[in-house]
């Protein structure tokens, strides 16, 4: 027999609405840990709610979609709308093909030294590495235990965000099938940026 009163406290909001509100405020990807801090939900509930929200946005053909990226969630504009929306006044900065080559080498061979990168490309890569470091796409992973103690490079969480993938293994899956990266690729799931890093990046971006 149904109870004459509601079991949950009156006015408990829908979890999907709560998640939607938090992701809207965050703008940038919000990690599972941060979501737990705001809502008190465990990882399983977060994932379930995210699935539901993604489904709602899809079925109702809404303007936003849910992206799972770099270990967190983000509300983004649906790519099909990009052309219509025309939210650009200049072309977005693109990476040059050479920069992308260096980035690919670092992504799939990390951790890797500058000498190793140059050996693969056959040319000097110092300036490109410095540029990628400055853009926050790659990071210093310490030093190799060999003569000269050269710096080892790897990709950052921000790199995963820019690729729109959740992890390096997801990135590897998206590569042309007949050329799958070798087993040597480390399958790390990078964590999303902390809020301080996000705020720094916002300041850096707005200074451009």
């Amino acid at each position, binding site marked *: 027999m149904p109870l004459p009163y509601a079991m949950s406290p009156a006015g408990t909001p829908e979890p999907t609405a709560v998640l939607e509100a938090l992701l*809207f405020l965050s*703008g940038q990807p919000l990690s599972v840990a941060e979501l737990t801090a705001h809502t008190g939900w465990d990882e399983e509930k977060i994932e379930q709610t995210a699935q539901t929200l993604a489904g709602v946005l899809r079925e109702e053909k809404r303007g936003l979609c849910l992206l799972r990226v770099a270990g967190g969630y983000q*509300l*983004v504009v649906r*790519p099909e709308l990009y052309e219509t929306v025309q*939210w650009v006044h200049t072309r977005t900065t693109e990476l040059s093909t050479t920069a992308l080559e260096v980035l*690919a*080498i670092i992504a799939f061979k990390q951790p890797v030294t500058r000498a190793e990168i140059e050996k693969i490309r056959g040319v000097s890569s110092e300036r490109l590495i410095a540029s990628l470091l400055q853009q926050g796409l790659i990071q210093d992973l310490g030093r190799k235990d060999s003569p000269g103690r050269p710096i080892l490079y790897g990709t950052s969480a921000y790199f995963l965000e820019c690729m729109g993938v959740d992890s390096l293994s997801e990135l590897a899956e998206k*590569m042309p099938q007949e050329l799958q990266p070798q087993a040597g690729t480390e399958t790390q799931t990078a964590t999303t940026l902390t809020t301080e890093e996000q705020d720094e990046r916002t300041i850096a971006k707005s200074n451009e």
Partner: protein
Amino acid sequence: MPMEAYQYKVSDFEGPLDLLLYLIEKNKVDIYNIPIVEITDQFNAYVREFETFDVNYASKFFVMAATLLQIKSRLLLPRPPQLEEEEEDPQEVLIRQLVEYRQMKQFSTTMATLWERRCQMPGRERTPMPFTKQFSGKIEKSALYQAFRLVYQTLPETPVTEIHLQKEIYSVAESMRRVEMILQQTSRPVPVWHIFRICRTRTELVVVFLSVLELLKLGRCCTLSDGEEGNAVALRYVPGGNA
């Protein structure tokens, strides 16, 4: 050779591997089975047309040209003696390098597509969290301090003519006795600024202030509210005290 063979200048290529891959593509040959003689000749033909002389950039091409010649000569000459243990067949080394480089180039093309796709799904900037004002603690009646401050501001600053260390002219203990005497003279509460008024310099004022606090601490006097609105402070002597 006809001019259309040089539609790309060497400086259009990032490096010798890039040029080699281009030639392999152009000649539609199998990377694992490069016709070394042909490719070497074509490579050198390009390098010979070098116009820019950036030493660093050019040197890499010359090294590759030399490597190709080495491979070519090994093929043309009679079978060389067995390679030593550490030495690898330069042709195998080159093929491995080419395969790896080609793989990376293809990955980077796919990554460019992913990047572009990601740019078509922009998010918002983070909404900054505003600070909420928090009120904590209680406002303490600082009437005592206000009285002190009033007097302090009207007193002249002690002129400093020369700097030499002096023996302490005013001591807190002496001031305490002085203040006690003033308080003992009358059983009525004494407005606190009557006490501060006796001071002639700021240093003296500070010492007297400290002695008042000390007397309060020891319980030899107590504070009362005074004045028309009750927001001035007066002191009264307490016989006995806590000392």
